[in-house]
């Protein structure tokens, strides 16, 4: 339970940074499709966010906390539905979590190093 709460508070912290960079830094006469979701053509586009080491690290923090929180939450809901814990469900969710962490870290590192 404590792990679920701590990862949730981590999401609150890192998620706030993520939401701020995408949804609160764009010029408000445009939409985010024309601004913060552009590849690299303006200062607040996607790639400059990944190039900043601190923001890239906060994205990894968000990835880690969300993976733990989501997989643990799904495990809880499935256990509530079937009435007991199933070790195969646990194993599948751990495998999905490891894949998401590795794949997400790969995306962050590639975008960080892309020139």
């Amino acid at each position, binding site marked *: 339970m404590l792990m679920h709460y701590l990862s949730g508070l981590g999401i609150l912290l890192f998620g706030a940074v993520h939401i701020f960079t995408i949804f609160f830094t*764009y010029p408000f006469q445009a939409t985010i*499709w024309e601004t913060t979701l552009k590849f*690299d053509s303006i200062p607040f586009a996607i790639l400059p966010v990944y190039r900043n080491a601190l923001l890239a690290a906060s994205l990894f923090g968000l990835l880690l906390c969300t993976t733990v929180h989501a997989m643990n939450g799904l495990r809880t809901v499935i256990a509530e539905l079937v009435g007991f814990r199933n070790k195969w469900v646990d194993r599948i969710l751990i495998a999905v979590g490891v894949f998401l962490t590795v794949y*997400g870290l790969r995306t962050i590192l590639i975008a960080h190093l*892309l020139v």
Partner: protein
Amino acid sequence: MLSQREGRTKVLQSLRVMLVPGRYGLERWSFVLQRISGVAVSLYFIAHILETGNFVGGITVWTVPEYSFAEAAHQKSVELLKNPVFDVGLAVIGFLVALHTFNGLRLILTHFGFLVGKPGRPEPFEQPASLNARQRALFWLSISLAVFALLYTLDALMGVFRV
């Protein structure tokens, strides 16, 4: 050990109990909304990681590609995602994320004994204890902030409130 049929019946019964909070109180609605938003946002999170992976070329790319290749991959992904259905879907996700976050904060505070009030002696024929006034206020604050998140996301993606 349950048979396959018994197991399926049990899951359906649990789903019915979990997802139909109508004749129960606000507490139950809070529980159901927290579960539904949690599962929906978890599934979105998986899709989001896969989708942002496509921004740099997809699952086959594990080294830093040419800049032009990544830019073209990003452009292709944006063309696929930029449509009203996706925009509205993302606004609904914004609603669910905000609801799950603020209602989750209320649950954390409650778990550690904040805002729950003092325990009292139950009287005969008394209604069972449910959310107190402060808890109810926080629940409705969560809903209000979630509605704001929905509207803000709609505006950020589609510019619906521009003159």
